[in-house]
């Protein structure tokens, strides 16, 4: 069952494991037996997929709530009358583009181009940051015009849906900045860019969710 799997010896997660292994090594002199089994996926990537599964369930809960409430409400206001759809559409396009730049970034490091990685990561971060800023701006506008979450169920759901996604984007941006710093420090090589991949997976997920949210909250 436990088949041979190629694990880069410098895979961050395993280093974490070993790092502490060395710390508490005290009394014991025997080697530490660390086997590999299951599908030939790196542990960290496997875990990220699990994590994304939980995220899917989280947003299922939110979006489910939204749909139930919306269907259950006889006169749901038309989003176009309440929200600046064109601006957000542009914003959506920006976020999708940032997904594309993320792909470029991975490509770059895969082909050994440190510069490419740094540049494309930079673009992705910029895209994400701009997206959030536009959303914050949108919020300020709405609140300025008295459209608070406590006004009615439309606004309650609107802020909850977009807000939680916004938080995810913020987390993503911070994560990408961390990656970017390591990239500048030249931490990644064509053999070793797992951390870039992990952040990428999360980033694509966040974008995907937004496409969904945009459709049901703004367009439907």
């Amino acid at each position: 069952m436990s088949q041979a799997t190629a694990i880069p010896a410098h895979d961050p997660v395993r280093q974490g494991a070993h790092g502490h292994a060395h710390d508490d090594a005290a009394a014991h002199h025997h080697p530490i037996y660390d086997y590999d089994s299951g599908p030939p996926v790196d542990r960290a990537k496997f875990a990220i997929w699990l994590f994304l599964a939980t995220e899917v369930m989280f947003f299922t809960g939110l979006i489910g709530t939204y749909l139930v409430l919306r269907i259950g409400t006889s006169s749901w206001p038309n989003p176009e009358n309440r929200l600046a759809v064109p601006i957000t559409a542009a914003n959506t396009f920006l976020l999708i583009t940032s997904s594309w730049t993320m792909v470029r970034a991975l490509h770059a490091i895969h082909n050994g181009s440190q510069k490419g990685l740094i540049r494309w990561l930079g673009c992705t971060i910029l895209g994400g940051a701009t997206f959030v800023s536009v959303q914050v701006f949108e919020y300020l506008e709405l609140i300025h015009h008295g459209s608070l979450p406590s006004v009615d169920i439309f606004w309650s759901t609107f802020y909850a849906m977009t807000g939680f996604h916004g938080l995810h984007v913020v987390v993503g941006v911070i994560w990408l900045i961390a990656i970017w710093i390591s990239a500048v420090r030249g931490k990644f090589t064509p053999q070793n860019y797992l951390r870039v991949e992990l952040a990428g997976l999360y980033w694509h997920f966040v974008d995907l969710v937004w496409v969904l949210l945009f459709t049901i909250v703004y367009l439907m």
Partner: protein
Amino acid sequence: MRDASSTAHAAHAAALHPGLGAPGTVHEIHEHHEIGFLRKYVFSTDHKVIGIQFMFTGLVFFLLGGLMAMAIRWQLAWPWTEMPVVGRVLFPNTGRVISPEFYTMLFTMHGTIMIFFVIIPLLTGAFGNFLIPLMIGAPDMAFPKLNMFGYWAMIPAILCVLMSFALEGGGPAAGWTAYPPLSTIEKAAPGSMHGQTFWLLALTFVGASSMMGAVNYVTTIVKMRAPGLTMMRLPLSIWGLFIAALLQLFALPVLTAASIMQVLDRVLHTGFFTPTNLLVNQMTPESAGAAAGGQPLLWQHLFWFYSHPAVYIMVVPAMGFASDILSTHARKPLFGYKPMVYSIMAIAGLGFIVWGHHMFMSGMNPALGMTFMVSTILIALPSCVKVFNWLATLWGSRIHLTSAMLNALAFVAMFIIGGLSGIWMASTPVDIYIHDTYIVVAHFHYVVFAGSVFAIFGAIYHWFPKMFGRQMNETLGKIHFVGSFIFTNCVFYMMHQIGIAGLMRRTADPYAYDVYAHLQPLNQFISISAFCLFAWQIFFVVNLFHSIFWGKRVGRNPWNACSLEWEAPSPPGHGNFDKKLTVHRGPYEYGTPEVAEDYLPQARSI
């Protein structure tokens, strides 16, 4: 390629030439330097230490939750009478008696603490952490640091839950199910102003802790099994913990989302769960500047979508422990390994489509109720398979009546009772009568206390030698068991009768109604038994602490058990195993004719 030295070389090669892989890497460790107490016992990343941290946290809260149960029982037996001793301290300004507000907080916190701070942490937190790496032959969890954070996420949870009790205005008072609008509109429960909010935050933190744990467990079990240990050679404890982790991964986020929405309803006055034109204390939420137009039923759906799977999270690992303990101490292979595994999967799978059985009376479409009845009754089948396989395991076995075994047997005996009463409630017409009566209370205490908690006791007796290198005192163990068994049934069996008589739960004083007046003597009997049950645990506590320091020292494998954890030293050092493991067979080869002894460990080659 499998023996230590060559893999070691592979590892070094890998280190030298990045990208080169190694099948099961081995790391020679040579440097010696002592590490401080804090790093070793408090901020530890060692799964064994974290497991034991979870265990004691859980036990302390068990004590707390138990005390609350005693207060509940006092009120139900002698309503509005002065509590001896504690009354003076606790309620000076209510004339030393439990106030109705306080009673609601009591069972709310009792339920919350017992489920989220006792059973789940003990099963998945304590034993999940301690057992998983050991039973699959791994040196630690896949992500030790994440594991540590998993435990430390419990701290804010604990603070929140304790604060919610202490805060001015008092603790949460909407039941552990926190149904809105009672839970969302502060005026509806004047007691729980910030209490409810902190309660929700506590749940969210516990959730975070469980998520980190679950990701870690699943990854570890899938990716770090010893050579030859196929999934179908895993001990059932691991299967139980594995499935429970999956349940948490897919169910918990929904509760998290729901709890956060309820927090928003309370703090930002959104209207997710607030219907239009309510009139609470002569005031509508709208006029108080809150949004409305939401649906209270929605919360129930979201809550039970998690909390039904949660009840199986609370039993599936227990089933696993019971299976291992039964087989080991009966010196006989577990009967029907595959059906046992598949039935766990079935229980978990069906567990996702039965949540509506908590809502039969809620006003949910009765046709929907009928479909939920079908799926719920269906779920009795896999449990049935398990019960009969346990019995078949015992048939023709050589039972050693150790404390661990006794508790495992009790688990089977009493899980049956709890499960069977589930059928009553699953059938919608009968549930019309018994919903929210004490039959429900009897039901879930039988599965959760008489079931899971006894399995946990059994697991503690069984794996204590591995945890501390010493054995718990058998005599004390048996005394503890006999008393607990008797009193548990005195307490919870009689609750069926009270429930059948129609007494509804969550009532501070039922005797005002002439339907219920005659039930007081029975309730007093239950309460006295409950006090005895509680007092009897002293034998466990003494045994536990005494054995940690002065228990009989034991070797690696005191029970002559087959699974991998017994290959490691007791207690295992850092990295758990001091030899390379290769697994040749399943975990239950007891009484095999292949060898002279009556057991053949998984890792022994013949």
